[in-house]
């Protein structure tokens, strides 16, 4: 899933300073699963904002709502009120949702309540960790199912640097060395020899090297145009 965390409250308050009527809009997708931007968090943020508004005499009117996904046109039907009723919408979706919604409602400012951080999984209670970098050229079949692009701080493809200590990355001792994880997994499977072949330099073209990325499913494009 896409993991996002809420921006600091003061930064949100500062963003809202030009506006009076605000809709806090949660998203039922990834940010609900990572417990940061779903309906409950939208409700919480709305009441926090009302309190702050009273406290600082900001005269804000704050409602909240949540739709299934902010990155998909069809779910906007479920909005209780049109965004046009508000001076601005504070979106708790990831960066995709914020942009997509503001494209659908160009007359309403959509502001980000979240910092979108990574593609990850919930690996322990209260912990989400980055697992995928979205590089566009998956190597998991070669590395014991553990990604060296996302889980090595330097995205090294031929083995670790000399910086790991006690299996932890030089960047932080809270962070596993991705290459130690790969080595451990392949050792368990008796497949360490798979690491002996030199991997060529990464083709960053599928990452950001060829600019903004798109996915086109030709069949669907044709069907649509036939209709």
């Amino acid at each position: 899933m896409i993991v996002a965390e809420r921006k600091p409250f003061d930064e949100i308050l500062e963003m809202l300073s030009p506006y009076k009527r605000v809709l806090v809009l949660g998203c039922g997708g990834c940010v609900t699963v990572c417990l940061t931007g779903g309906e409950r968090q939208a409700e919480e943020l709305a009441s926090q904002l009302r309190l702050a508004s009273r406290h600082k005499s900001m005269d804000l009117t704050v409602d909240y709502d949540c739709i299934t996904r902010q990155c998909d046109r069809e779910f906007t039907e479920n909005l209780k009120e049109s965004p046009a009723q508000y001076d601005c919408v504070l979106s708790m979706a990831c960066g995709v949702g914020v942009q997509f919604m503001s494209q659908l409602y160009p007359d309403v400012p959509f502001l980000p309540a979240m910092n979108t951080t990574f593609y990850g999984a919930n690996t322990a209670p209260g912990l989400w960790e980055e697992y995928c970098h979205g590089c566009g050229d998956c190597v998991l079949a070669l590395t014991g199912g553990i990604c060296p692009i996302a889980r090595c701080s330097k995205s090294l493809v031929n083995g670790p640097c000399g910086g790991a200590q006690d299996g932890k990355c030089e960047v932080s001792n809270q962070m596993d060395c991705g290459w130690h994880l790969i080595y451990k997994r392949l050792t368990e499977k008796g497949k360490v020899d798979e690491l002996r072949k030199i991997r060529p330099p990464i083709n960053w073209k599928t990452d950001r090297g060829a600019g903004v990325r798109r996915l086109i499913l030709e069949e669907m494009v044709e069907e649509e145009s036939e209709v």
Partner: protein
Amino acid sequence: MNEPVSNLKSAFESGRFVFTGEIGPPKGTNVQSCLHEAEEYLKDSVTAVNVTDGQTAVMRIGSIAVSNMLLERGIEPVFQMTCRDRNRIALQMDLLSAYSLGIRNVLSLTGDHVAMGDHPEAKPVFDLDSVGLLQAMVKLEAGTDMGRDMKGNPNKLEGAPKFFKGCCVTPCAEEVELQIIKLEKKVEAGAQFVQTQAVYEPAVFEKFMQRIEHLKAPVMVGIVMLKSVGMAKYMNRSVPGVHVPDELITRLSDTAKEDLQRVSIEICGELIRKMKHCCQGAHLMTLGWGHCVPDIIAAALA
């Protein structure tokens, strides 16, 4: 045409035990003191002098410039090159630039992460890894680069460089097999000599050397001067793959401050004497104590 690529390469070929030193370029333009160290203490003692490349991810004057200043002073540099700050275009450009200035020895390194240094907000590059950088050098030597022309053929260079290519390894690392696998790849990719991380455990090093006997590249054991008890303890705590045994720590703590340098020189000399039978040279990292190099070498050869 048969001119040797570098004195360092020739020294290994001659079969004698080789010494190299190291200087760290300063933060700023005042290069006098690091050049003085190289000229005064290293020039007549070692075969070549490593010039670090933004060591510990701290911004400093560049390795190419200081390597070139060494050349001008008749000192052969080993240009350390990390993958941290440049993509493959910039790396290849700098390799050609270095060659054009007369730099021949290049040490391929991954580089410390920017998070370790004094610009933690910088974008870490790591477009290539240290294996990829060696492959890039080999391509340049073959008269092509890593790119392709419009027809999909390798781009041809007008004039190709020739390097003596080195790499690094940590012999006392916790997962030594993983280190060895990567070292094998570096040698396969083109590395012609190896420098190691600091070693204080001759027995562990000897075992490591037995495990890489099949690799035909000469190995220089890394010797870092222990300048104080605090530094030795710090290395145990914070430098991955380096272990200073208790016996050395006790010896340093039993030493009066004014004798520290002498004892540190003795330790370096002893370490090299214990390991020189199983490797081809020693890379001396004196961390500003360059004036000790002649004495370390004398102690090592005693």
